[in-house]
């Protein structure tokens, strides 16, 4: 009985390892093909990004790696929303972008995974109508801390097409 359980567990573990390894290999192979097709200019651009990457602290690298993993676990709809938001985000004025980012980070009221900090109450805006969302946002201190320009930018991010 114990032996059978161990054998089944082992096979399961081996499958996990094999799947993970195969997925990694597949990604690397795809990357290699992409890299080979790149023009020298594109390669130079990637190399520059890589240089910047290497200069970053380890924690930041881990965070980006984690974000990559999280993004690939999301549903296609959620991915679309985030991609749309990013398109808007890129077009914002750098000062506005930075301010919104900082206020979101520093207020310590929002968390990436939706886990509430002890003693605080959080409300997810997911599955709410636009009107409800706006109503809730306008009541928050975060909203009150934004300038008019930032409020407008935040709305664009919130209600991305």
């Amino acid at each position: 009985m114990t032996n059978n359980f161990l054998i089944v567990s082992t096979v399961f573990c081996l499958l996990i390892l094999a799947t993970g390894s195969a997925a990694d290999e597949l990604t690397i192979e795809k990357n290699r093909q992409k890299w080979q097709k790149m023009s020298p200019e594109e390669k130079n651009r990637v190399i520059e990004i890589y240089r910047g990457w290497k200069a970053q602290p380890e924690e930041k690298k881990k965070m980006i790696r984690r974000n990559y993993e999280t993004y690939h676990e999301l549903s296609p709809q959620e991915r679309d929303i985030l991609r749309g938001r990013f398109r808007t985000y890129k077009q914002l004025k750098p000062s506005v972008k930075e301010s919104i980012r900082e206020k979101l980070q520093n207020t310590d009221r929002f968390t990436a995974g939706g886990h509430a900090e002890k003693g605080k109450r959080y409300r997810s805006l997911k599955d709410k109508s636009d009107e409800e969302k706006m109503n809730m946002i306008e009541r928050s201190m975060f909203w009150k801390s934004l300038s008019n320009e930032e409020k407008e930018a935040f709305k664009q991010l919130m209600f991305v097409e």
Partner: protein
Amino acid sequence: MNCDAARKSFASYIEGSLPDDQQRLVTEHFERCKSCRDGYESILHAWKTLDLWEDVEPPVHMKKDAMQKLRDERLSDRLHFLLPVAAVLVIAMTIFLFYGREDHRSIRDMASSTDSTTVKIKTAGKEISEEEIISNLQILQDKDFYDAFDTLKKIDLLPLADDFQENHHYDKKSSLEFLPA
């Protein structure tokens, strides 16, 4: 020679392996003792009957099969001990690799040290590992997005703690539902 000693010597007597004087003493005893002589003749008859049987060689595959069965049993005994040990090792390795995966990748892919076996690209006098770039190309090409990912995702979460502090609603049930604190 008495009857007991004579009977113990029957087999050797038939084979002719007794020393000459012993052989002679047994013969003399048979001449004197009818009971022992009858016993001897009965054994001699059985012996001769056995001689009529042909020796049969066992088939070659029978020996092979028997030996194989023995080996299988030994292997099975060894496996019985080794399999659980191997299984535990594999499970432990999987847990280690699975949970250490993120950090492992970070170190392998993103650390500043380079693998000496990989192709190096020389740019502006500095060497860059091509393999490291290829391993992480999917992130490097989209680095700005993954960098802003937390901010973009946090937009979906709204804190109400401040509202409650402001309006002193801690002790009242809100019409809004809250995630557990």
